[in-house]
């Protein structure tokens, strides 16, 4: 159901912006179509390798690793482990958030879970190899990842300082 909704929004936006492009004149529209299709031909194989690769990488990451990294370990070592676990968590948002919720209930520190969720949002390997690397210039991706490195730690620090949540 939600997948259908996503597809409706997605193709609706394509149609809407496509129409806007068409109103700029046929040559503009044709050039944009050519660009889009060319990108698709260029990007699809990379997404393919990303999808298939991510499946195999996910298969060799032991689930115990993610769960044990989010144990009741307190302090900065726990934050570091949570950050690594966030980047290494395979699958979509359901898996990421569920692991975080389980960890929170079974006694993991809130700052560590905070770092885990932020690290997952920023570095989840599956999203990076499936989407970000094929679609964006590679140097942008590495650059973006590099400047984002401090943020899981910053999130944990802010959570420790404020005592929230």
């Amino acid at each position: 159901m939600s997948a259908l909704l996503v597809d409706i929004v997605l193709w609706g936006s394509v149609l809407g912006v496509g129409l806007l492009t068409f109103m700029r004149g046929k040559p503009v529209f044709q050039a944009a179509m050519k660009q889009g299709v060319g990108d698709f031909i260029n990007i699809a194989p990379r997404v393919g390798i990303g999808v298939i690769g991510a499946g195999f990488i996910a298969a060799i990451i032991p689930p115990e690793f993610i769960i044990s990294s989010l144990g009741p370990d307190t302090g900065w070592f726990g934050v570091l482990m949570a950050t690594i676990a966030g980047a290494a968590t395979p699958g979509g948002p359901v898996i990421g958030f569920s692991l975080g919720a389980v960890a929170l209930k079974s006694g993991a520190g809130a700052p560590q879970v905070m770092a885990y969720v932020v690290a997952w949002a920023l570095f989840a390997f599956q999203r990076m190899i499936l989407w970000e690397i094929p679609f964006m210039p590679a140097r942008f991706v590495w650059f973006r990842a590099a400047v984002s490195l401090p943020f899981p730690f910053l999130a944990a620090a802010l959570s420790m300082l404020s005592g929230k949540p």
Partner: protein
Amino acid sequence: MSNPAAPKLNPPDDDVPAGARPKKRKPVQWSFVFILVLVAVSVALVWRRDGTQGVITIFMSDVWLFAEILPRVLAGCLLGGFIAAVLPHDRVSKSLGPHSGLKGLLIGAAFGAILPGGPFTAYPVASALLAVGADFGATIAMVVSWTLIGYGRAISWELPIMGTEFTLWRIVISLPMPILAGVLGRFVYVRVKERFEL
């Protein structure tokens, strides 16, 4: 779109054999090689653990997944192409370019927070913005804002699974991060650009 910032003088090099690519494409190749090596090692480990049957099972389910998302990849690419054609280049480079200041980063972050859809819209749109004159800083602010503050994922998944209190505090704590990432991105980019010929 895959390398929008490449100099326009370069001929389209999609059909050039891998070994003969111009120097500018090197970073792309390296990340590709990196992923291929990672995948090869993973396949070998799966094979050692589960045998050929295990490898085939994973491969088949991933091929299906790929077939499922392929239409979305196409939609994302078309969206990126159209957006790049519709957006006025001069205005984008003025409001999101290297000299757009804090305002440019704020615009980028706000845009990332309200952007609908998933990764198949966010990354093509970000790439289109780069192509029409946004700088790394504003685009980083947009992408980071989309992953951290974007309402879609928070409402559909984080709120029900993690609870209201955690989600709200997580978002409050994350609020400054897109801007910080953009500032850091700009600051580092100008200093690194020359040295590494980015």
